[in-house]
């Protein structure tokens, strides 16, 4: 069954313009995903830092124990 090329299933015409545009813009949107992920990490790191200062015995954060 692996001999059937995937194009057989792509029964929709993606359209040349739509195809090209995706390739152009998706890289930028993908970069945004990476930036967002790093940003989330930075925010989480800063928050964790803040939380660590006033020791809260009820905090379940393993770093606080």
């Amino acid at each position: 069954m692996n001999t059937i090329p995937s194009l057989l299933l792509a029964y929709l015409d993606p359209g040349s313009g739509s195809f090209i545009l995706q390739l152009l813009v998706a890289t930028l949107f993908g970069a945004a995903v990476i930036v967002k992920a790093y940003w989330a990490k930075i925010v989480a790191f800063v928050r964790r830092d803040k939380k660590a200062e006033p020791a809260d015995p009820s905090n379940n954060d393993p770093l606080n124990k």
Partner: protein
Amino acid sequence: MTSDVQPLAASFRDPSGFLFTRQGVLYRQVNQLYRENYDRLMTSGLAEKLIRGGWLIPHTEVDAPPADASLAYKVIRPELLDFISYPYEWSFSQLQDAALNTLAIQKMALESGMALKDASAYNMQFHHGRAVLIDTLSFEVYREGEPWVAYRQFCQHFLAPLALMAYTDVRLSQLLRVYIDGIPLDLAARLLPGKTRWDLGLATHIHLHAAAQQRYSDKAINKNAQTRKMGRTAFIGLMDNLESTVRKLQWKPAGTEWGDYYDASAGHYTSDAMQEKRQAVSDFLARIQPKSVWDLGANTGVFSRLASVQGIPTVAFDIDPAAVERNYRAVKQAKESALLPLVLDLTNPSPAIGWCNRERHSLLERGPVDAVLALALIHHLAISNNVPLPRLAEFLSQAGQWLVIEFVPKEDSQVQKLLATREDIFPDYTPQGFETAFGAYYMLRERFPLKASPRVMYLMERRG
């Protein structure tokens, strides 16, 4: 194919399989061509996850013979919907939820190494109050590097109509009735206000997209070239951006003439008359115990709920997109599962459209139901639209076996308002004329004059 096997007229584009009925039971044939994808969908746990979460219509694999054995891999039996509705019958939030659910399904599919190979609005249906994917064969194994084949379809079926409804006019959803494969992006780009060019998502997915389509309209591209690759992160980024673009679009139901119809300030309905009317409709429903109801001219669904709260599948049709929007938001908030609000102009109900006029069904082809409610409706059709009472009776009798109808006489303030600006050319619009016209199609079962209003409630059963 034996004569009791009927392939569905709308199910022909995708060679992965098709829907058919045998002796009235609906099946989906999965073709050998789709085998690898179907097996991945089922064994990866994706199908189970989507079905359990209410994203995908449940199905069972059955032993039933296929409709076309030469192509068949498997036969599955999908769970049935109460009612098939179409995107041009949805309010803004309904189309938006269908779009967001499509993208949510796409994300879950990616986590299981699959992707949607189409993004048709017609593949989404409202089932128990939620927009679910009904095409089990929409998934394909994701191949890293390949762009999203359904990007154009998603923009045409979802993003363009939503942007037009939000930025230009909510009534432009009706363009979907003309363009069965979604609104052409060049048309959407022309109809949208210039300020949408400053929105990154709309600028990209509609304006630039339309320009790219025009520029490359007659150019073939080599889709397999090594340089034409779109990595997984880029793929996810595209989905993320589509999602935030769709989510940002807003439309608020305000300033329409019927949105506040039931508000106390509307004046023409005393709360006593309202209470009496509720009681009459409840009593009639208790007597006939319908299994399905259409409420025609339902406004925000106050009376539809007398049926739907009992678990009776009920469709609440109204011409006003604001009323339907409010109704849908209420359905969503209260997680109501039996009520489906839809936009419909009864003077021009949804026709049969698409290939051979058989892909999307007309309103009447999707009936009949057990009971039709026609409350505070008759004067709009008989007087505003000049429909003679016998023709109105004929139409309603085609829609359902039982009819709960409110006769609104000429002395009623609402009818007076309609007649204020025009000649009264309706000598037969009287209680007697009404009973005679409807008597030709129905047997009158109950008659209930409201005490606090000149209106009369009737319960009728279709003849024959």
